[in-house]
């Protein structure tokens, strides 16, 4: 009952700060809805220049073929090798193709790529070598994401980001505010215990997190056409709930170590947000990480979330495959919460 009273008080606090409420509600929608459309990895209308030494029908055909594809666009001829550097720096070309004099006798094509944008040049390299060779000499297909729909791919990572920002910062900020403004002293005078106060404060934010889960789910459904079957939906909401709880606890843990709001913000960004973005397999796959950090990266809440999400939603994996993720999130949450409560009891009013 006491927990509910505190929850009610906290809900009123959240409701009355209109700007924060607006941002809280809109944030996941913006992150998932906008960025889901941005983080694609397809090529479109890349400009290239050609230095044609052979000037034959064969070479013109090759250039035309590339020009007519939707990925590439012919942007002009070069006349000497010395112009190549300038084509990149001044004309902003994406790549330069040098056609040898004896193309038909099997002299190699030379392709110059721009290493200052490696992601782009890697994609160019792969696409070009397939186009010029006329396809792969074998059959292939992709499992789980058969059309290689790139808009679905960043989805788990974006959902993770949206949840972690809101959850880790929200509750920790609110606890810290009470502490800084002195109202925490008043709260502790009430019959509620420290655990009850924190649990009460957490309830409204957990409700907000579940709303975020719902909005994210609706966006992936209507905007990206992601179809999830019923058992996975239940799993998704359970995962959202557990992950938000876990992030809140990590946020609280940071709050138990710092004093001011600025410190808390920096702590949450540097030690919760940034590691979970970079080491969770969202931007770089886990397999390309250094062996030094790999053991830690595997157990980051972020990577547990992404792996479990992919398993549940993309692969339709069974419970025994994904239960590890749930279990680890729970264990981490319980352990960190115990430490946090201990620290709070010792130095809640430390100055």
């Amino acid at each position: 009952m006491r927990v509910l009273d505190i929850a009610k008080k906290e809900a009123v606090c959240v409701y009355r700060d209109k700007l924060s409420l607006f941002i809280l509600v809109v944030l996941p929608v913006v992150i998932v809805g906008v960025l889901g459309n941005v983080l694609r990895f397809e090529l479109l209308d890349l400009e290239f220049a050609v230095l044609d030494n052979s000037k034959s029908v064969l070479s013109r055909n090759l250039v035309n073929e590339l020009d007519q594809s939707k990925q590439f666009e012919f942007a002009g001829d070069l006349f000497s090798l010395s112009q190549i550097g300038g084509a990149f720096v001044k004309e902003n070309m994406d790549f330069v193709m040098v056609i040898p004099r004896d193309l038909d006798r099997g002299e190699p094509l030379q392709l110059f790529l721009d290493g200052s944008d490696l992601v782009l040049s890697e994609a160019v390299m792969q696409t070009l070598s397939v186009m010029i060779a006329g396809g792969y000499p074998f059959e292939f297909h992709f499992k789980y994401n058969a059309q290689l729909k790139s808009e679905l791919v960043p989805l788990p990572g974006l959902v993770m980001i949206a949840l972690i920002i809101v959850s880790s910062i929200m509750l920790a900020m609110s606890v810290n505010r009470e502490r800084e403004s002195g109202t925490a002293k008043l709260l502790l005078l009430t019959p509620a215990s420290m655990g009850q106060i924190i649990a009460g404060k957490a309830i409204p934010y957990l409700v907000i997190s579940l709303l975020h889960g719902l909005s994210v789910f609706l966006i992936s459904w209507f905007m990206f056409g992601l179809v999830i079957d019923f058992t996975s939906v239940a799993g998704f909401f359970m995962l959202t709930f557990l992950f938000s709880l876990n992030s809140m606890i990590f946020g609280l843990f940071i709050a138990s170590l710092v004093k001011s709001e600025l410190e808390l913000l920096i702590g949450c960004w540097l030690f919760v947000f940034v590691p979970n973005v970079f080491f969770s397999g969202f931007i770089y796959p886990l397999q390309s990480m250094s062996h030094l950090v790999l053991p830690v990266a595997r157990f980051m809440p972020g990577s547990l979330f992404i792996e479990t999400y992919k398993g549940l939603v993309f692969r339709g994996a069974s419970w025994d495959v994904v239960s590890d993720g749930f279990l680890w999130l729970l264990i981490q949450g319980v352990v960190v919460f115990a430490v946090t409560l201990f620290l709070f009891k010792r130095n809640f009013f430390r100055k």
Partner: protein
Amino acid sequence: MRLLIATIYKEYLQLVRNKVLLFLVMACPVILLGIIPLSFDGSTRFRAAICDSEGSYRVSELVGELSLNPLFESVVFIPVPEEAEAQMDAGRLDLIIYSSSAGFQIILDGTFPRRALNALHVTDKTLFEKNQVPVVFHTMFNSGRRYNHYSLISLIVLVITLVGTALITLNVVRERESGLEEQLRSTVLDRFVYFLGKFIFFVFICLFEVVLCLLFCRLVYGLENQGSFANYLIVNVVFFFPLLGLGYVIAAFSRTQLQAVYMLTIVLILLTMLCTMFTHLSSMPQWAAATRFVNPVYYGIESSRMVIFKGATLANLAPMLGWMLCLGVVLNAVAFVRFRKA
């Protein structure tokens, strides 16, 4: 002039006497630049399985060829296709190569398309190189194709963006919340001088950050600057103009630190995800690519890459620098008007 110097000195003292802020300024870049590159240091390591129901002689040859390639972490032979697929379901395999008398068939895990396409490309190169039309690829400007050098440039910009905007926004909002600004209003200090003093001070802090970051990258990762150092500094000073302006705008429109934090978070995430740090313009939908015109982070990253990798001169950079200045003027003007009224 004397007042301006006094304002700058006040900011300096505030920073030096606050241990946490000092930590943020000195250690944050080093921590971020030291830790984050660990997340992409190794080249991508693929885990392949080879399936051959007919038990032909080619299998051992294939396993040998693939495992010679350092890009493959493990190459195993699994005779039963169902078992290989179960391994892939559990996320332990990136690709399965079925070999039969009819030819090859490759199945890839599509949940990370860039990785899948890369695996396809590498497998093709390793196993079927000889049948292809000869093409030689040259990479200019970062000829070793070193991913950490490529990412470090954008990380430096990320660090400056985080630290710069967070410092200035929270500095302004905190002075307002604690009532300090109210007191300063009753002194001879002009609003413009106050605004300018802060601005100049934070430009110096950010410059310090840039030099620290570049030095760290040079010493630890061996990042070479192809352009001139002076050009890099000029590019960055121009970049701070819209960046700090953005911080001011957020500060001017938020009443409490909490609101400032939320606004800062949402704006920074949008800006960093919409720039070319993790993706490239030609793969974005057009409306998203068009947001680059109002995104200072995009110009910060592109111009840094131009200088450090391509050795661009100021003449090459002029359009970008000009646009950044325009953005800066608009943002700072908006912030100042709002700031004076508040």
